Structures are given as C-alpha cells and as structure tokens.
C-alpha cells in the first residue's frame, strides 16, 4: 500500500511552464504552456527538433535558464525531494537551488569532451560533489567514487580514478559524466542529448547503461533527444515538443504505434529505418507524409566506373620533441581500394576516427596521400601538378558536414555560390545572375535568399546552399562528407530526398561518407565498411545489409537503434571493444590488405586488425 501511494506522487511535476528570452527586438518565447510529470523510476523523453524548447525546459527545471538570459514567466515546477515534501522550484532562491542541483537533480550534458575539467583527475572530479553535498570524508568519498565507476561498468576502475580526461575515450568520458551525475544519488537524472555526439556503438552502450541504472537505483530520468530511434530504445513515456509547445504526450508504445498528431507522425516517418530498403535493389526517396504525393523514382545509375581508388594510403606525421621532429605516423587510411560507378552512390561507413573523412579529402587531394592511385576517368589525380589538379577538381566537388562552418559568415550567399564559377571563369557577367538563380531553384531555395548572409538561414537551408555551390561547376562526382549528419531528422529526410532527386536528374555519382547505417541503407548502391583505416567489408548494399560477414560490420548493425520500442537492445549483445590506436612507430610496415571473396563483388578483410 505504501509503495503504491509513493508511486502516485510524481518526483517532478511541471505545470504550465512559460519561459521567455529578452532580446534586442523583444521577447521571444522559449517554452509556452508546458506541462508534464515524471514518476519515480520512470524515463520520460522530451523529443523535438532543434529550437523546439526541449533544452530550455531542462534548464528551467534546474533554474539554470536564468544564467542564459531567460526568464520563467509562469507555471510551477513541483519537486518532491521525498514522498511527503513537495516544493516549487520556481520560488526557491539560488542558495536552495545550489543544494538541489547535483545533489537531488543530476545532469548529463551532450558533449563529454567539454563536460569534464581537463586539468583534474577523474577522482577529484567525482569526489568533489560527494564532499560538498554529502560532507563525506576524503577516504569515504574515494571509496564511493570507486563504487560509482564500477556501477557505470568502466573497466579497470582503480586505474581510471588516477587518469585525466584526455586519456579516456569519448564513451568512457560520458560514463564518467553519468557517474558524476549519479554520485549523490539524485532523484532525477536530466540527460540532455547525452548520446548525440557519440558513435553508434558507444551510444548503444550508454543507452543500455542508463536503462540498467534506472532499474538498479530507481532514479527517474528526463531524457532529451531529437532522435526518435533513441526514444524508442529508452523511453517509458514521451513528450513531443514543437516550437516551445507540447504537441503530444503518451506512453512510448502509443506514440509509436498510434501517433495522433500530424507532427508526431511526420517525426516518426522521417527517421530512416534500418531494414526499410530490404528487397529493393536501388535507392528511393523517403516518403515523408502519408499523402503519397512523392513520385516514386528509382535511381538505377550505370555500371560504368567513374572513379577508381586503388591501394590508397594516407598517413599523418606525429611530431614531438624540441625541433618538432616526426616521431611516429598516424595511419589514417591503409591500403583501401574501391570503385564508384557513374550515376551511383558508394557509401563509406564507420565510426569516428576510422579514416572515412580522410579518404574523402584524399580523393580531392585536400590531404596529400602517401601512395596509391585515385583515377578519375582514367586520370590519376594524385599525380597531377597544381594546374592540372585545379582542372580535375571541376569534376568533383565536396559538401561538408557542418552547415554552420562550411559557409563564410561574412559573404552573401550569391557571392559564395558564384565563387567557383568566377574562379574557373565559366560564366561571366549577366549570365552569372541567371545561373546562380537556377542553382538556387535546383536546390529548392527561394531566390530572395541570394542577398542574404548565412546566419539568416537554418541548418538545412545552409546545407542546400553548400550543395548549390558544389553543383555550380557541374561536377560528375559529389563527395558528401557526413552531409546530413548535423541536421534535424525532418530536415535530414528532405535533404536526402533532394540529393536523390538531383542524382536522378543530373546523373551524379556520390561518395557518401556517414556513420549512420540507416541513412546509408537508404541512399547507396555500394557500401564499404571501415575500421581503423582499413576497408573491412565491401559489396553492394543489399548483400552487406542482408548478409554482414565481418564481425565488426555485424556489431555496427546491432548497435543501430531501431525506432520500435519492442526491439530494444539486449544487454548481452552489447559488447564492443574500444578502437585501438592508429599511431605506429616510424619503422612499422603494415601488411597489405587481403580479402576473402564471399561472392562476386562481396569481399571481407582477412587481416587481423584486432577485431574478431
């Protein structure tokens, strides 16, 4: 009976919350009329796209929003520190909030690289909160820190305590951040996009860890994310937000199986699902709404090779000592070969640090390679002199990951898109205006944007400008380096569709670099999986996805979160090895890659690369 009454008192009860931001031009509403509650031992997901107010809500609960210029104008946030005492956080003064923050409400931030102080050991950072909030003695706090590291399943916890953050991998750091947040046994853990900056395999580990911790400690979790697949993996209840307002709230199964609002439906349908392309030979655009008005196209392409990469090796020198001598090599790309056909897409997929971006840049010779061949229509790019290289770059262009970083902030969009045309003196004078306008039409941007600056555009719009700039020279090959990874799901879906449309229309070939298996499955004809600078498995998309053979490929597939609450990670599946270092001594001679042919066109790496 007692436990039942306890269950009915929410740990956190947010009612009619309204947060405004004062800007130069007037008040901007961050969150409007938001109500939701979290019960003990429950995971509530706040989901929405960027700008939907989900982070603002979490900051409002912590009362940290005031430090960022926001103001809570209305509403109540009732927090139950135990089952009898409830207090309104909005009326608490900052002294009391300091007592609650970290102690009763823990917080995990997105970026594990910056959430830890680089000059203190892990032990010092972990014990700080314990000694302040719980008044523990030094020895007792040290012991508790060790237990915490054990509870977040960090291997060799004794050694980790004495290490500094830079000595640990991203996933390990995020575990430590979680351990810190859990140190004082908080009632609620607020996790703000804790897995967005991590690789899929590490994301899977962290999600299982959070699920397990919730069961073990009974902590409630407020999980903030933009990724519906992650929601399906972790949530008990879901609150969908849009433009600062709640769109829909419900049980996770209800939301996924029977979404009521159009926005929720759109959010779910724009998530590329792994396995959605099963049995389809060629890539197809995503169907974004139920109206079915997307014309169904199939991108067939040709089987004539356009770009052939043979035995590409790229290494970066590691310098050290007083005179910055080369002391070691970072083997970024090691003996990689692949072919891209005209009008088709070849995808490189792998985790961060596996060398996929280096390959993309080596093909354009933005990085100089050690050895190998990159043949574009029979011409070896790597052997061209500076002048010929410029001419060869006419044929291939690149779209970068970060839509905020890849446009010059102080140049008008017109000038940015016109720059390649002016460089190559292709279009001059009045025709330039016409050409640029047509390019904007092509990427479905209004012409009125021509005179704007990048900061006036959203992420998706900027990425369209970057695509327009890349298309200006009529290239045959477009290198897409994580081109859709930084975008919101619905924007991502529309940019993917744009890319597929353009491929169909202009017969472009794509080198598609991504860490997202589901997106890769959607767009590619051929796929290469990379690990530690080597291509571990290569073949056509259908084969790779239906019959993954290399153990690493399998592990990668397993780690992809599935947007279905019934298919959650099995904790026994999740057992990944940390990637070993690609830095080798100067004298190290790596063995050439050798492959087993599984069937025609499907090859699996034979070399032992520490993942079997």
């Amino acid at each position, binding site marked *: 009976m007692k436990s039942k009454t306890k269950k009915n008192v929410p740990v956190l009860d947010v009612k009619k919350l309204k947060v405004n931001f004062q800007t*130069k*031009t007037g008040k901007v509403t961050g969150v409007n009329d938001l109500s939701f509650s979290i019960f003990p031992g429950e995971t509530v997901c706040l989901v929405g796209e960027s700008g939907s107010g989900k982070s603002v809500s979490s900051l409002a609960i912590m009362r940290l929003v005031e430090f960022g210029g926001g103001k809570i104008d209305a509403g109540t946030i009732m927090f139950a520190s135990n089952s009898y005492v409830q207090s309104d956080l909005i009326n608490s003064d900052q002294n009391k909030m300091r007592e609650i923050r970290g102690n009763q409400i823990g917080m995990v931030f997105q970026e594990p690289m910056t959430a830890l102080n680089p000059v203190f050991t892990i032990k010092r950072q972990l014990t700080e909160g314990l000694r302040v909030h719980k008044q523990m003695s030094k020895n007792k706090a040290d012991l508790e820190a060790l237990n915490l590291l054990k509870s977040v399943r960090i291997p060799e916890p004794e050694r980790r305590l004495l290490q500094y953050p830079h000595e640990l991998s991203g996933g390990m750091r995020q575990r430590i951040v979680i351990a810190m947040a859990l140190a004082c046994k908080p009632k609620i853990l607020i996790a703000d996009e804790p897995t967005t900056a991590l690789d899929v395999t590490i994301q899977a580990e962290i999600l299982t860890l959070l699920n397990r911790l919730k069961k073990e400690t009974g902590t409630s979790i407020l999980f903030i994310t933009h990724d519906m697949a992650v929601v399906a993996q972790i949530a008990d209840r879901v609150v969908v937000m849009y433009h600062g307002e709640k769109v829909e709230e419900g049980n996770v199964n209800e939301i996924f199986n029977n979404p009521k609002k159009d926005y929720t439906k759109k959010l779910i349908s724009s998530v590329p699902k792994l396995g959605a392309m099963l049995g389809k030979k060629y890539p197809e655009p995503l169907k974004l709404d139920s109206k079915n008005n997307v014309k169904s196209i199939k991108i067939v392409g040709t089987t004539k090779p356009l770009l052939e990469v043979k035995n590409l090796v790229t290494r970066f020198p590691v310098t050290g000592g007083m005179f910055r001598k080369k002391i070691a090599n970072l083997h970024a790309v090691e003996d990689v070969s692949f072919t891209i056909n005209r009008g088709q897409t070849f995808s490189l997929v792998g985790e961060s640090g596996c060398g996929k971006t280096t390959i993309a*840049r080596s093909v*354009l010779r*933005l990085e100089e390679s050690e050895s190998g061949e990159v043949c574009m229509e029979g011409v070896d790019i790597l052997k061209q002199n500076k002048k010929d290289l*410029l001419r060869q*770059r*006419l044929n291939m*262009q*690149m779209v*970068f*990951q*970060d839509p905020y*970083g*890849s*446009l*010059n*902030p*102080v*140049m008008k969009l*017109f000038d940015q898109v016109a*720059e*390649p045309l002016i*460089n*190559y003196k292709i279009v001059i004078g009045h025709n330039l*205006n016409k050409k640029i*306008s047509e390019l904007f039409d092509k990427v479905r941007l209004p*012409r*009125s944007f*021509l*005179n704007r*600056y990048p*900061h*006036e555009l959203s992420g998706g719009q900027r990425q369209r400008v*970057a695509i327009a*700039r*890349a298309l*200006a*020279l009529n290239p045959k090959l477009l290198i897409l380096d994580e081109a859709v990874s930084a975008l919101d799901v619905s924007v991502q879906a529309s940019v993917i569709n744009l890319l597929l449309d353009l491929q169909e229309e202009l017969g472009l070939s794509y080198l598609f670099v991504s860490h997202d298996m589901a997106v890769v499955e959607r767009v590619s004809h051929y796929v290469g999986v990379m690990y530690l600078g080597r291509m571990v498995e290569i073949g056509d998309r259908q084969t790779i996805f239906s019959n993954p053979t290399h153990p690493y490929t399998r592990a990668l597939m397993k780690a992809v979160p599935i947007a279905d609450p019934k298919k959650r990670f099995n904790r026994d599946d999740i057992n990944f090895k940390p990637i070993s270092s690609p830095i080798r001594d100067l004298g190290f001679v790596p063995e050439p890659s050798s492959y087993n042919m599984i069937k025609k066109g499907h090859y699996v790496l034979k070399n032992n690369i520490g993942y079997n």
Partner: protein
Amino acid sequence: MSNKIKNQEILFSPGSTYWGDVWLQFKKHKGALLGAIIFFGILITVMLGPYLWPFEPNAIDIRSRNQGPSLLHPFGTDQLGRDTFSRMIAGGQTSITVGLAAMFLSLVLGTCIGVIAGYYKRLDGVLMRFTDLFLSLPLLPLLLLMMFLFREPLSVSYGPEKGMFILIVFAIGVTSWMPTARIVRGDVLALKQREFVIAARSIGSPDQKIIIRHILPNILSPILVSATLGIANAIITESALSFLGLGFPPDFPTWGRLLNDAVDYLQLHPERVMWPGLAISLTVLSINFLGDGLRDALDPRIRGR
C-alpha cells in the same frame, strides 16, 4: 514571366547597398557614434585651428607668461608666454599624424606577417622566430640606435621636421607590429581549419583569393582592436622619445612633449598637464569606440540583429 522580373528586382534591389547597411548598424551603436563625433571634432580643430586661431605656437610673449585660463588664452600660457591652445593644436597635428601613420605601418606589417605565417606552414617557424626576435629586442636602446644612425641623413634629405617624422613613424611602426602578428597568426590558424576555407580550396580558389575573401574579413575584429590600441601606443611612444630628447626638435610641439614640459610645473600649474593628457585620452578613447562600432558594423551576423 512576371515571376522572373520579380526575382531580378530582388537581386538588384536598391537601398540595401553594403555600405548603407554598415552605416545603419554603425548608427545604432551610440558609443561609436559619439566616438566618431569626438574624433572628427578633434581632427577638424587640429587641421583648421592654425588658420583661425590668432596666436602662433612659437610666438614668445614674456610679459604674459604662466597665465591661467582666460578668455584671451583659454588654456593659459606657458613659462615663455606661448599660448597653450595654439601649441595644443600644433602638437595635435604631429601627434595624430604620427599615431595614425605608425599604427597603419605596424598594422600592415603585423597583418602581413601574421597571415603569411598562419597560412603557409613552411614559413610559420621562420616568421614566428623572427617575431620573437623583435619581441625580445630591448625597445628603447633599439630606438636610440635608430635615431643615432638615421637622424642626420634623413634630416639632410627631407629637412629636419619631415625627416624626423619619417624616422619616428618608421621606428614606432617596426617595433610594435609583433602583437598584431601573433594575434592574427593564431586566428588564421583556427580559420584555416574551418570548413568554409577547405571548401574554398575545393572549389578552386587560389591562395591569395582565399586570404582576401575568406580569411581577412573574418579576422577584422582583432585587427581593428589592435589598430585602436596601436594609435594610443604610438602617441605615447612618441612622447617618450620626445622626453628623451630624441624626437622632434625641442621647440616643435607635440602632445607628448607638452605633457613632459608641463611635468616640471606640476605643483604650480597643474592644469598644464591636464590639457595634453586629456587630448591623448580623448583621442584614444574615441578611436577605441569608433573601432568597436566599426567592427560590429562590418560583421553581418551582428548587423542582422
């Protein structure tokens, strides 16, 4: 058809010219506007003053020496009865010209060296060691040596005042570019890694175009900040040189020299220190605000707000 015309109009819509937008944003920054008014006020007074003010800066009138401010001599007179206001005007001409010219020289030097060191990895080590060398040189002995070596030949070929002017501007310019170079280099190194610079390389932009179109506009704010600080520095260094008797000829007024001359009479006539001090501070402060507003106005991210 009508749609096409509409788009053309948008493309060439008048009224939103680049400098028009810059001016609109600049106007919004009240401090910068005030700074601009004060600076141009000082500039106009100093330029037109000699034609309007009845007293010559070097006209000695022993009978009316050491006077306080009056209607006839608003800033008073000095120990030789020279009108302080006219000396301030004459001194301002030299000081502001020296300040602007030396700042410009050190800015050009610093920016060039910083950009080249940051952009071309090969030259980075050499240029930065060169910068370190200049930073480690003791400034005053170096200036003294330069004065000693070049004063006579320059005086002969350009006349004593012009020769001195060239020498002082050059001396201050070549000994104060190092901080600018270091700041610019750091910013260029960071910018070079940004994707839009890599993107510019991949669309075939030549190096000088990348530097002019993509790098320089993005490092404008540290350059402008060092420029405003540079002017102040130049005025003060010039006064230090004058103090050591190495600057302009002794009867040739500059703000720095007036300040130093007045120090001897600090107890008897404290207001004499105030005038040149106030002029230097006001100039530096107004240029600082001017630079601040200019930086904001040139940045489209701030301008859009």
